[in-house]
């Protein structure tokens, strides 16, 4: 692939999947600066990984893999700045009808945000309706492990919601 083709492919992937990348980074970011760093890092990893993309999996699954690998392993070399803008005031686009359902939805997002890095990844993949086999391939776990872990996560979310 020459540079022009690579640039074209990169732009196409980013345009089509930027929202997906953003929502994955959002779930792992501590503040706005961290969110930008993660997004930048994911974009850089997508660019450098273009040559190895075999096309055997869906592009969205590949992008998910790169985004999760980046977010989970990203080592924040500088600590949080006290002036860093928190993400509390920013929400993903959630339809807020002001009703009880929307409130429960926001609560669930917050609960998912409290899970550890691995559980967050599994839940996100599951919410995007990836099969157990796809989740197992992306995470590097056995299928049985994915199933039992998802079951535990759902129980934990239910008990956190009841606290």
């Amino acid at each position, binding site marked *: 692939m020459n540079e022009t083709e690579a*640039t074209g492919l990169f*732009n196409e992937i*980013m345009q089509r*999947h*930027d*929202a*997906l990348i*953003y*929502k994955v980074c*959002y779930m792992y970011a501590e503040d*706005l600066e961290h969110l*930008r760093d993660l*997004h*930048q*890092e994911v*974009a*850089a*990893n*997508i*660019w*450098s*990984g*273009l040559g*190895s*993309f075999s096309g055997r999996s869906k592009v*969205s699954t*590949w992008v998910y*893999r*790169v985004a*999760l*690998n*980046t977010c*989970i*392993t*990203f*080592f924040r070399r500088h600590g949080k700045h006290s002036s860093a803008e928190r993400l509390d005031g*920013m*929400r*993903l*686009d*959630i*339809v807020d009808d002001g009703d009880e*359902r929307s409130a*429960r*939805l926001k609560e*669930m997002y917050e609960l998912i945000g409290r899970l*550890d*890095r*691995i559980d967050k990844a599994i839940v*996100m993949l599951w*919410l*995007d*309706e990836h099969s157990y086999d796809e989740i197992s*391939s*992306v*995470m*590097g*776990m056995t299928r049985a*492990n994915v199933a039992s872990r998802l079951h535990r996560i759902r129980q934990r979310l*239910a008990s956190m919601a009841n606290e």
Partner: protein
Amino acid sequence: MNSDIDYLKMQWQSLNTSASGNRNDADAPDFSNVLKNGAVSSAARVKRIYTMILVICLIWTVLSLANFVFPVVPELVGGLMAAFFLLMSGMLAATVRRAGMIDFGRMSVADAMKSVCRLESLIMWRRIIGIPLAFLLLSVMIWHFSGNAFMIGGALCGAAAGLAIGVALARRIRESIREMKHLIKELER
């Protein structure tokens, strides 16, 4: 709970087509600039920087060894320099190789974490070993050229200070490695 989950799934999947989530356009990174500014991931940056340092170390290794043929500094100093730069070159080469093996597009999350752990371990150990040795070498060089016997004590103090600095610098990396190893164990349970 099940209807909540279904609704959550529907909301979550709808975000994939949302243009920019709830962020302002001013906050949205312009990904076309990622290419203009040279899209370099952390692993690629590590590889690039350490390749440069590796080349410098190799040059100094050759110059130090050449000292045995064309003496410029005392043999002891030349020998210690050669040993130091050779050791550092080996560690840097391992780091460069390890950084080059990271491919987040091919790896599973478990493999990615193991690779990053190994890379960070190499960086950490290079600091813990390299900084005190550098202080020691520097002190020996100063002692040799100043002829001052107290420099031996200074050399040892320097090495101890270097070790303390190396360990302190490695502390944050150690925390990251510890956390990732814990997550890897969780994944493999």
